[in-house]
């Protein structure tokens, strides 16, 4: 990959040439073709969708539905199985709340210890409200999902298994397809919900192949705009999902006595969505596809290896890296601690001294940090197509400076 050319796809690097952005797990940068598409909507066919009888509204509706086609094709899903939301969090909450009436106090719901809050709290809340049993599958010392223990938690009363495809802290890639098969062998009715927030920009997703029941991700981690998410669900399950948002555009007929809802996917898309964002999402997906996920993965592995080796060479036992050592089992994130320097101080000094942007804190994964990793916070670097080995060199230099200041 020609990274110099890739960097030129982003206006942010033109404005700030020295920027070293190592926080793509939080949000990816947005290439010009995506921001241009956002503007195209506002400047050329700014109208609400699915309700105007004039040219701009028709064009906006066509572009909006084109994005649905692009997403469906990207996921290998059916058109009506793709619902646009405001993000992963909204998608997961819509599933959890929408399934409430199907859960009873004799059921149980299984999640994992490596979940981000967005795929943890909705299920914990659902169990609180329905008095179902909330079960958390542990992880191993290497930061891998303990699949044996997870399977032990699955029984005939397991209604839902919600798990992340890739951990936002450990980088661990979970073997979703294999797990789906094993879980189905134990209970074919367990609904499998996949949080793909951290995998969508890094590996090919094929919902038909994986055979999950629901899947959620945000476009802003895939070169797209913030405020747009996708909720994928198998048609049979989406049809049974109670819409938690009701209102305009999702109805068939409304009388003072009762309301009937529209067909999928519209019944789950109440109100005016982020039209420009959804439209621009087609460009974001095209952009990701232009590299190909094999190339993206290859590049990511190279950076992971280079960064890990450099951290260990330069800081030895002072650096603690969380997550699996085997690069083939992890995606593009490295969470670490350096001596007892607080991650927030590390991040601030890297920004101040080297213009290096990294994440610090608990990364919205408090149970994982406090209960499993037994650490208050970690610092995290994460990579995307625009990162180079030189970025990592600058980060390592900065980390030496951090150590100098704080020691």
């Amino acid at each position, binding site marked *: 990959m020609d990274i110099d050319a890739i960097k030129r796809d982003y206006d942010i690097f033109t404005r700030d040439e020295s920027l070293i952005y190592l926080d793509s797990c939080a949000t990816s940068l947005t290439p010009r073709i995506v921001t241009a598409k956002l503007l195209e909507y506002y400047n050329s066919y700014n109208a609400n969708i699915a309700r105007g009888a004039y040219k701009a509204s028709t064009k906006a509706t066509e572009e909006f539905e084109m994005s649905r086609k692009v997403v469906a094709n990207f996921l290998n899903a059916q058109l009506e199985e793709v619902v646009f939301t405001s993000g992963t969090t909204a998608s997961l909450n819509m599933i959890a709340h929408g399934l409430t009436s199907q859960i009873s106090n004799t059921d149980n719901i299984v999640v994992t210890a490596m979940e981000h809050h967005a795929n943890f709290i909705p299920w914990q809340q659902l169990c609180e409200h329905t008095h179902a049993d909330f079960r958390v599958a542990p992880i191993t010392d290497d930061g891998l999902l303990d699949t044996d223990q997870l399977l032990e938690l699955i029984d005939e009363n397991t209604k839902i298994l919600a798990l992340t495809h890739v951990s936002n802290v450990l980088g661990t890639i979970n073997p979703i397809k294999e797990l789906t098969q094993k879980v189905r062998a134990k209970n074919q009715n367990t609904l499998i919900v996949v949080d793909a927030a951290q995998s969508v920009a890094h590996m090919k997703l094929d919902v038909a192949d994986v055979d999950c029941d629901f899947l959620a991700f945000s476009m802003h981690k895939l070169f797209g705009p913030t405020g747009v998410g996708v909720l994928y669900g198998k048609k049979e399950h989406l049809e049974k999902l109670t819409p938690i948002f009701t209102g305009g555009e999702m109805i068939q007929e409304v009388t003072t006595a009762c309301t009937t809802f529209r067909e999928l996917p519209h019944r789950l898309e109440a109100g005016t969505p982020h039209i420009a964002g959804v439209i621009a999402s087609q460009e974001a997906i095209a952009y990701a596809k232009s590299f190909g996920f094999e190339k993206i993965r290859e590049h990511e592995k190279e950076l992971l290896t280079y960064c890990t080796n450099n951290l260990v060479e330069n800081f030895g036992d002072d650096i603690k890296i969380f997550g699996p050592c085997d690069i083939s089992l992890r995606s593009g994130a490295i969470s670490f601690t350096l001596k007892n320097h607080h*991650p927030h101080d590390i991040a601030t*000094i890297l920004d101040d001294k080297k213009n290096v942007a990294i994440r610090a804190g608990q990364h919205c994964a408090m149970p994982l940090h406090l209960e499993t990793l037994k650490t208050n916070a970690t610092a995290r670097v994460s990579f995307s197509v625009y990162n180079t080995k030189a970025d990592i060199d600058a980060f390592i230099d900065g980390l030496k400076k951090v150590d100098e200041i704080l020691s």
Partner: protein
Amino acid sequence: MDLYQEEILEHYHHPQNSGKLNNPTHERCANNPTCGDKICVTIDVINDVINDINFEGEGCAISQAATSMVTDKIKGDTVENALAITRDDIIDILGIEVGIGRIRCALLGIETIQKALEYGKIKK
């Protein structure tokens, strides 16, 4: 201006009033969920004056230094004055610009102290 001034680092490495009072009249713990910082304070109030104050916890340089500095400032002063300390006062005490990304770190200590004084009275 550089966030990591000599004085701040000095307070971070050698915090004042560190520890836990044996027989406090007020106590409180609080955390900052974005960074995982946690601070517990114990205070001894006699006749509405802060006779002694200690704090312990884990946190970043900014939160630890700010807490250390503010405990120094309020020790011996009245409860009323401690409760009147504002965000701007903390920035003055630190002597640096603290951006929106780190202001919660800087305020964790004083907020915990003020909550301890207001709601953390130990029943004896």
